[in-house]
Structures are given as structure tokens and as C-alpha cells.
């Protein structure tokens, strides 16, 4: 069964550094998402992406964040200058149609900002 994969599984970085979190969605998926989960808190929507552009972004997704799909397979989340409060688990997800009811999630990348 196809799966969403994410790398790295754990990223430790210093405050102010740039990080790129990578995701490989399921091949026939067209809609892509990033969510994050701060430790002990709920999973929160960050951004949705379709047809090489952002469809919607949350208040969390400020100018420090960006997404792209550089090569038609990878889907990346970049944080330009990390802050301590960016420490969280970041989940990539995908769905195969706009009306699809199910999103398929990756295993997550744990980002630790020191």
C-alpha cells in the first residue's frame, strides 16, 4: 500500500537557522497539506497546496514559512529563521481529489529548535 514518507524523522536546529522538511506524497495525489502538532497539543492546519500554489494558509503560516513542490514528487516546508516556538511535529498529508474525504498523513518530522 502506498505511503506518504517524510524526512528527516527528527531535525535539531539552532534558533535563527533555516530548515527544510521534506515529504514524498502518494504519487496520484494532487492536494497537499502541512499540519503541525506542538507537544501535548492538538494537530493544527498550516497550509494547503494545489497546482503549484498555496490554496489556503492559517495564521500560523507567516512570512517565515514557505512551501514548494520543486520536482513533481517532493513537497517541502521551509522555515527561514526558526524560533523556539517552531519546535513541533510537522505532518505532511495528501489527498487525491478536491472532494476527497480522506487525507493520508506521513509519519511526521519532529523539529527541535534550541
Amino acid at each position, binding site marked *: 500500500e502506498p505511503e506518504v514518507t517524510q524526512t528527516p524523522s527528527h531535525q535539531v536546529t539552532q534558533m535563527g537557522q533555516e530548515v527544510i522538511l521534506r515529504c514524498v506524497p502518494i504519487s496520484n495525489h494532487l*492536494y497537499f497539506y502541512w499540519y503541525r502538532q506542538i507537544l501535548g497539543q*492538538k494537530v493544527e*492546519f498550516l497550509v494547503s497546496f*494545489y497546482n503549484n500554489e498555496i490554496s489556503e494558509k492559517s495564521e500560523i503560516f507567516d512570512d517565515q514559512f514557505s512551501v514548494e513542490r520543486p520536482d513533481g514528487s517532493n513537497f517541502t516546508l521551509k522555515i527561514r529563521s526558526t524560533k523556539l516556538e517552531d519546535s513541533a511535529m510537522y*505532518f505532511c498529508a495528501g489527498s487525491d481529489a478536491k472532494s476527497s*474525504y480522506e487525507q493520508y*498523513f*506521513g*509519519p511526521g518530522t519532529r523539529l527541535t529548535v534550541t
Partner: protein
Amino acid sequence: AQSVAQPEDQVNVAEGNPLTVKCTYSVSGNPYLFWYVQYPNRGLQFLLKYITGDNLVKGSYGFEAEFNKSQTSFHLKKPSALVSDSALYFCAVRDIGPSGTYKYIFGTGTRLKVLA
């Protein structure tokens, strides 16, 4: 705005006993409701969904959920719990954004502990 609430941070149940993990929702329009499970070091795995139709929805791993419109609830149930069911369970509602794309609004999660 759409929202879901999971009133219990943790639920403990003995193996073999029935389990219930509670979720209530607040939506405008028809609710599209989901349950996901998160095992340690794993992503969110889809369990089941309610879109329309029968109020009792059957899903993966023997789980089911009962949609109750009058009580605005969507509780997750299983007749006989297994130790391997111990995990973090999230209720979610689908929300539609201004561009017409969808996202999930998640509850805070309930940790289920099944005791042998």
C-alpha cells in the same frame, strides 16, 4: 467555525472490555467527521469517517463510531479492547476554506490505555 471537542485527555480500559472515546462537534451545515489514530512514532492513520447515511459507521481494526445529531456527538467505540489499541486518538471535522479546498480541524486528542 467548525470545531470538535474531546473532553477526555485519557481513557483507561481493561483488555476485553468495551471502549468509548468521546467527541462532540460544532459545525455550520452538514458535518463531515473523522477519527484518526496515532501510534508512537507514526503518522496519523485513518480509522473511519461519517459523511452521510447510517449513523453507525464501521472502520478499521474493529472500531466503529456513532453519529448522533441531536447530541452533536461522534463517539468512537469498540466492543472488545485490545492492548494493541493503546494509542492517541483524534477526532476531526472537515472545514472548507475560501478557495474551496478542504482542511481538517482536529480535537485535542485522547490517549487510550488498554490494560492487560
